[in-house]
């Protein structure tokens, strides 16, 4: 893997005698390639390599007896730090209910994740209410209702003829009257460049002031993940990210791109289609996975 490639690059360089800054840079080329192949966005890779390079040179990698090992260690540490702390919880609001809204591109896994989060919360002693606020996709409401039914968790719906803001407000009133302490709102998938639909989310945020807005990102997303995450961050107050479909073999570089450009923690990861397939985020594991 990458470790072997860096070792090989370093070996070639050491044959020349003392290492130079340029030598360190060329060994880092292997890291750059690995990150790009892992779908980390171009600019994020560039910034990351610059960061690692400065640290490597600053820490005297050039004088080290094992420069290859040192570089790898620095890369792993820097990447793990960047992936962020493990804080896989949805902090409660000062007053109940704690409102959580899931947003993201079409097909990223919002509806399934919404249901998984409800299950997770109930396992932790909470009393969640699911809210079907996707009024566009055929049978989206039914999809959430089927999942809620499966878990015996209530789903608040007003049908497709109401707008998401009204549905959200109705859901919060219902939660208060029913003693539900978490309200999880599933929204329709949308493009970050769809002004009307992004405006709808902005209205939703201004109206119900949720405690959490979570951007759901497909782990197999490519270079464009940075553009998408940036756009959602600019229009909304994001509080966290959820990475889905990590049960596949994608390296998941989009996680780094999204994290770097939003500054938000990755709260959970989806690792399967079943409702129990939600895990806390492990930054070190993700770093290793991305590096391949």
């Amino acid at each position, binding site marked *: 893997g990458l470790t072997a490639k860096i070792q090989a690059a370093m070996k070639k360089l050491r044959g020349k005698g003392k290492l130079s800054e340029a030598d360190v840079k060329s060994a880092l080329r292997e890291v750059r*390639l690995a990150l*790009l*192949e*892992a*779908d980390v*966005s*171009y600019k994020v890779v560039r910034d990351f390599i610059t960061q690692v390079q400065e640290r490597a040179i600053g820490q005297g990698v050039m004088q080290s007896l094992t420069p290859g090992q040192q570089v790898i260690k620095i890369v792993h540490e820097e990447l793990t730090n960047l992936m962020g702390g493990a804080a896989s919880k949805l902090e409660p609001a000062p007053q109940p209910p704690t409102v959580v809204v899931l947003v993201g*591109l*079409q*097909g*990223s*896994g919002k509806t399934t994740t919404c249901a998984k989060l409800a299950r997770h919360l109930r396992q932790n002693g909470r009393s969640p209410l699911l809210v079907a606020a996707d009024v*566009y*996709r*055929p*049978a*989206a409401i*039914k*999809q*959430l*209702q*089927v*999942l809620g039914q*499966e878990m015996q968790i209530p789903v608040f719906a007003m049908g497709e003829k109401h707008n998401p803001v009204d549905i959200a407000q109705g859901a919060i009133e219902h939660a208060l009257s029913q003693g539900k302490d978490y309200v999880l709102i599933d929204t329709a998938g949308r*493009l*970050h*460049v769809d002004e009307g639909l992004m405006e709808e989310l902005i209205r939703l945020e201004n109206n119900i002031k949720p405690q959490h807005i979570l951007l759901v990102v*497909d782990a*197999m*997303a*490519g*270079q*464009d*993940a940075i*553009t*998408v995450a940036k756009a959602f961050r600019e229009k909304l107050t994001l509080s966290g990210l959820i990475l889905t*479909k990590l*049960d*596949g*073999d*994608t*390296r998941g*570089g*989009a996680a780094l791109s999204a994290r770097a450009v939003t500054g938000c923690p990755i709260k959970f990861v989806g690792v399967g*289609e079943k409702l129990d397939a939600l895990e806390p985020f492990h930054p070190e594991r993700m770093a290793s996975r991305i590096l391949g």
Partner: protein
Amino acid sequence: ISGSSGLDADFFAEMEEILIMADVGVETSLALVDNIRREAQVGKIHSGEEVLDLLKKQIAKSLTIEKSQPVERTDKPTILLVVGVNGVGKTTTIAKLANKFNKEGKRVLLAAADTFRAAAIDQLNTWAQRLNLDIISHQPGADPAAVVFDALQALRARRLDMLIVDTAGRLHTKVNLMAELEKIQRIITREYPEASLETLLVLDATTGQNALAQARVFQQTLNLSGIVLTKLDGTAKGGIIIPISREVGVPVKYIGIGEGLEDLHRFSPTAFVTALFA
């Protein structure tokens, strides 16, 4: 592309950057630009515009797979088996295809063979109702092979022109689920050998390098006849189809450019390449 019309290192670096950021992948991007740099030298081409034009033509050519035929046949019934990983747009693409062929006068039947995901049958059923098309479905949790079997009987008995089969999304790494698809494809070729079978892999333009792995594995398991690249109405370029074309050789037949019934276009290599560099 940079303001300078000269061919300096910056020019080629910029080309590589555009390709990589379009999800063409590092290896293919470097190979494409390396090739074009040598051709520029050999051909004594000095203008950046000319070199870019040459690159675009080469990519468009590599995306034009000669044996690519349109999906529908007029001489025999057509069966479209639509497959792909989770959430890429299979069900929506089926609605678009059904709409297109229905408007062209074909009698189309739908098969709701995603019996697993919550409300998958309801979702396809909604489209069937909107389009006033027949649909074969069982209850959630039923054997998808049984749904397909019934649909094949209906296709024959009702003397229809086309059957489109919706399948559950599945990651290519799930061996048992891929085996299920292979079984479904085998049932179709065994029960209805006289039909023209097209197996379409749906890929999401927002997917990165993993789309190449998806194409490889789906092609290994099934005999794919085409790719549908969806969500090109976003900002992702879908450049991964370039290495896929080189390595897997399956032609892109349609692109999805939105969530409505009309948002399906025939794939055009030149239009795609123009958008790639836009």
